[in-house]
C-alpha cells in the first residue's frame, strides 16, 4: 500500500526531500546485511510505499510539494533531480509568489481557500497513481504560516475528501526560542485543528534533534540540513519495511494503519514521539558494536525517563511499583518524572533480531492503568539492517513525552493572548479571539488528559 506525502512550506519541503532521499538510499544500500533476494523484497516494499516508477526507470516520489513562495520548491526539485537517483513528479508541485508571512491565519484562511482546488487536484493525481492508498504524510512545521496554516487547512480537506484514508501529520515542533515570534500562536492553532482532522501527529522537536546532532553525531556547526537528515533517518527507521508479524517473512502491507491502530485509537491522545538508538557519526560507528540487550535497555530507559537520546539518560528513574492504585501511581510519576506510556511501538532492524528480548517493554508499570501491555505494546521487526547500522531500534511512543513542551507552548501563547499582543495580525484574516479560545480549551484538555494517565 502506498503513502502520499504532502510537503508544505519551507520546512516541510526541505524535510520531505531528505526523507525521500533517506528512504531511497537505505533501500538501495548495498550493505543491507541480508540476502539479495530479501533485499529485493525490501526494496520493492519500500518502493510501493513511497515511489512510483516512470517510464525511464527513475523512481518518482509519491509526493506533492506545496509552498506559497517559489524559492524552496525550486531548490528542492533541483536537488532531487541532481541526485539522479530519484526525483519528484513533473507536475507535482504548487507554489505561489508570496508566502504566508508566518501568519497562520493567512495560510489557513487566505491561501487555503484560494488554492484549495489546485492543491487538492494535485493530491488526487498522486492518489490515482497508487494501486492502493493507505494514507497521507503531511510534513509541516507548526511555527510558520504556510506549513502550519495551510497544512491545517489541507489536512482538514483531506479528512473531508479521503475520510477513509489515514492522515499522519509530521509536525516539526519549533525550537523553544528563536525561530518565529508568533510560533506559539501558530502552534496552538495548528495543533487544535489537527486534533480534529488528523489521525496522528508524529512530533519532531527541533531542540531534541539539534541536541542529537551536537552530542551524538558530533557535528560542530549544525545546519538545517543536518537536522533534517537526522529527522529523515528517524522517520525512515519507522516506516521502512518490516515483517508483517512474528514468524512471517512477508513485509507489512499497511504500516500506517497498523501503527495507528496500535498507538492512537483514543481521540484525546494523538501525539506521538519517536526515539532512535543508536545514532552516531559514521566515524564512531566503525568502532562500535551493539547487542540487542544493550540497545533495548537504553531505549527503555530513554522511554521512562523521557530522554531524547541515549546520552545523559537519568538512570535513577524507575517505573512505579505496579499494583499501586492509580492515584498514588500518578503522584509518584510527578515526583520522579517518570514518563507514563499509553502505548508503544518498538521497531527492530538488523542481525539476530529474533533473539531480541522485549520483556522489559511489557511491564504493566510502564503503562497507564487502563491499558494492559498486551493492548499497549507492539513490536515490528526485520532482519534487514537499516542504513549503516548493523542493529538499530526505534521507538514510537504515545506517552507523556510531549506534555511538557505542549504545556510550555500553551502557556506562552496564553500569556501573549492575555496581553492581546499580535491578535490584530490574525483578526485581519478572519481568525478571531474565539478561535484562539477554542484552541486553548482543546489543548488544555489534551494536556490534562495526558497528565491524568
Amino acid at each position, binding site marked *: 500500500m502506498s503513502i502520499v506525502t504532502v510537503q508544505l512550506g519551507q520546512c516541510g519541503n526541505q524535510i520531505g526531500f531528505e526523507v525521500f532521499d533517506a528512504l531511497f538510499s537505505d533501500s538501495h544500500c548495498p550493505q543491507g546485511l541480508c540476502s539479495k533476494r530479501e533485499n529485493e523484497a525490501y526494496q520493492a516494499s519500500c518502493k510501493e510505499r513511497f515511489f512510483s516508477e516512470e517510464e525511464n526507470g527513475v523512481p518518482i516520489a509519491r509526493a506533492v510539494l506545496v509552498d506559497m*513562495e517559489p524559492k*524552496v520548491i525550486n531548490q528542492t526539485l533541483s536537488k532531487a533531480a541532481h541526485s539522479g537517483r530519484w526525483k519528484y513528479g513533473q507536475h507535482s508541485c504548487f507554489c*505561489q*509568489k508570496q508566502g504566508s508571512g*508566518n501568519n497562520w491565519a493567512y495560510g489557513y484562511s487566505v491561501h487555503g481557500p484560494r488554492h484549495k482546488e489546485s492543491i487538492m487536484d494535485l493530491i488526487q493525481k498522486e492518489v490515482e497513481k497508487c494501486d492502493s492508498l493507505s494514507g497521507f504524510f503531511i510534513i509541516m512545521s507548526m511555527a510558520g504560516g504556510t506549513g502550519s496554516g495551510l497544512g491545517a487547512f489541507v489536512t482538514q480537506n483531506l479528512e473531508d475528501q479521503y475520510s477513509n484514508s489515514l492522515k499522519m501529520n509530521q509536525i516539526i515542533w519549533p525550537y523553544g526560542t528563536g525561530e*518565529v515570534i508568533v510560533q506559539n500562536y501558530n502552534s496552538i492553532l495548528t495543533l487544535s485543528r489537527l486534533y480534529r482532522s488528523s489521525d496522528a501527529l508524529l512530533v519532531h522537536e527541533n531542540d531534541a534533534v539539534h541536541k542529537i546532532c551536537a552530542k551524538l553525531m558530533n557535528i560542530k556547526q549544525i545546519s538545517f540540513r543536518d537536522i533534517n537528515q537526522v529527522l529523515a533517518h528517524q522517520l525512515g527507521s519507522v516506516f521502512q519495511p518490516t515483517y508483517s508479524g512474528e514468524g512471517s517473512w512477508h513485509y507489512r502491507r499497511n504500516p500506517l494503519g497498523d501503527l495507528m491502530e496500535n498507538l492512537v485509537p483514543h481521540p484525546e491522545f494523538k501525539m506521538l514521539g519517536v526515539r532512535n538508538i543508536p545514532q552516531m557519526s559514521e566515524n564512531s560507528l566503525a568502532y562500535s558494536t551493539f547487542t540487542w540487550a544493550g540497545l533495548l535497555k537504553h531505549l527503555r530507559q530513554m522511554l521512562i525517563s523521557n530522554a531524547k537520546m541515549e546520552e545523559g539518560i537519568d538512570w535513577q528513574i524507575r517505573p512505579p511499583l505496579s499494583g499501586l492504585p492509580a492515584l498514588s501511581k500518578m503522584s509518584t510519576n510527578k515526583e520522579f518524572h517518570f514518563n507514563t506510556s499509553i502505548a508503544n511501538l518498538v521497531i527492530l532492524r538488523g542481525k539476530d533480531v529474533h533473539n531480541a528480548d522485549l520483556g522489559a517493554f511489557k511491564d504493566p508499570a510502564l503503562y497507564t492503568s487502563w491499558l494492559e501491555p498486551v493492548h499497549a505494546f507492539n513490536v515490528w521487526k526485520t532482519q534487514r539492517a537499516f542504513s549503516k547500522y548493523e542493529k538499530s531500534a526505534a521507538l514510537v511512543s504515545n506517552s507523556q513525552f510531549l506534555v511538557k513542551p505542549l504545556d510550555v507552548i500553551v502557556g506562552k501563547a496564553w*500569556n501573549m493572548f492575555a496581553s492581546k499582543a499580535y491578535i490584530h495580525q490574525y483578526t485581519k484574516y478572519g481568525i478571531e479571539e474565539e478561535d484562539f479560545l477554542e484552541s*486553548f480549551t482543546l489543548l488544555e484538555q489534551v*494536556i490534562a488528559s495526558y497528565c491524568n494517565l
Partner: protein
Amino acid sequence: MTQSVVVQVGQCGNQIGCCFWDLALREHAAVNQKAIYDEAISSFFRNVDTRVADGGSISRGKICSLKARAVLIDMEEGVVNEILQGPLRDVFDSKQLITDISGSGNNWAVGHKVFGSLYQEKILEKLRKSAEHCDCLQCFFIIHSMGGGTGSGLGTFLLKVLEDEFPEVYRFVTSVYPSGEDDVITSPYNSILAMKELNEHADCVLPIDNQSLFDIISKLNLMVNSGKLGTAIKPKSLVTSSAGAFKKRQEKPFDAMNNIVANLLLNLTSSARFEGSLNMDLNEISMNLVPFPQLHYLVSSLTPLYTLADVNIPPRRLDQMFSDAFSKDHQLIQADPKHSLYLACALMVRGNVQISDLRRNIERLKPSLQFVSWNQEGWKTSLCSVPPVGHSHSLLALANNTCVKPTFIELKARFRRLYKKKAHLHHYLQIEGMEESCFTEAMSSLSTLIEEYNQLDATKCMPTEDVPRLSVAI
C-alpha cells in the same frame, strides 16, 4: 517571487536611494555571474527590451537592460537631475520621475497639502505603472527624511495614497530623523506632523538618525586609522565606502552615511530575494515584530561594518558580530536597546552561518537582554546563504524596543519649545487645510505613542507573573 517598489522622496530620500540602487546592482552582479534575468533580480529590477519603443518587460533570459522599480519624487530638481546625469542614469527613465522646481521650503504643509493635492494624480499614475510591471507586488519602500518639507510632507502624504490604493501591499518606511543640531529650524514641526502619518499609515518604520550614522562613521574611521582593528581588516572595505561600486562616482560627504542605510535595505530584503535554509519574507517582518499596530518602529543595527581579510573567520569573530549588533554604538538611531525593553527582535543573518551559530549566540546574549513578559522568547531569525558583496557574513538586527522612546520624547520636547513660541507657525497655517488642530492632534498622537511605550516600560520592574490559565475539570 514578489517584487518591491522603492519610492524615494525629497533630497535625502533620493540620495539614499541612489546609493541603494548602486549597491543593489553591485550585489546582483556579484551573485548572478551569468547575467541571466532571474527571480532574485526581478524583485527590484525590471528587464526591459530596449529595442521596443515602449520598453516592454522581458520576464526571462539574458539581462538586456535593467530598470529600477523605483519612483523618484522631489520638488526640487537638483538631486534627481544629478542622478539622471550620473552613472546610474540608465536604470531610471523619465517616466519614473516627478519633480518640481519650487521646493517645499522645509515646510511639511507645503509638501503634504500643496504638492500632495497638486501631484496626487501624477504620483498615483506612476505608482500604478510601477505596480503593473510587477506580477506580485509585495512592498513599497519609502525613503524620506522627517525634517525637511518634501520628504516629510509629500513622503507621508504618499503613505495615505498607497494605503488607499494598494491596501494589500506593505509600506515600509525608512525615515531619517533630524539630529539635535539640525540646520532646519522647522524640523520639529515637520517631524511631529510626519510622525502622525507614520503612526497611522505605515506598516513598519525604520527610524534612522543622522547623528548615529555620523558617529558610527567617525568611530570606524578612527579605528581603521589607528590600526586598532589590526591587519584583519581589508583596507577600504568598509560598507560605508563605495570602493568597488558598480559605477564610479564622486564621493560625497553623506555618501558613507547613506551607504549604511542602503545596506540596511539590502540586508532587510536579502532573505526574501536569495535562497537560504531559513527564509524570511518581508511580510514576516511586520508579522513578527509588530505586536500592536501602532508600535511599528524598529530599531536597526548592522554588523560588521568592515570586511575581514580572511573569510574563514573563527567563531569568536562571528560571536563578536552578534555582540556588536546589540551594542549601543551600532544602532542606527541613538538608542540603547540593551537597557530598554524588547518587545521583539529579529536577527537576519547572511552568509556562511548555520542555525547552531545563531542559537548559540541567542543563548549567549539572552541573559543580558530584557524582553517583555509575554514575549520572553521574542526572537525571529533568518538565514540567507548569499553574503553581502565582499563579506563572508553579516547580521542585521531589528528590534522593536522601547529604546526608540527617547528619540520621540526629544522630538516632542523640541516641538514644545518651538510651538510654545508659536515660532514660524504662520508659514504652516497659511496653507489651505492646515489648522492649529493639526498640530495638537499630531502632538497627542505622539504622546499616545510615548505613553504606550511608557506602559510597557512600566512592566519592566514588575515581577513576571503568568496569567491564570483555563482550568479543565478533567
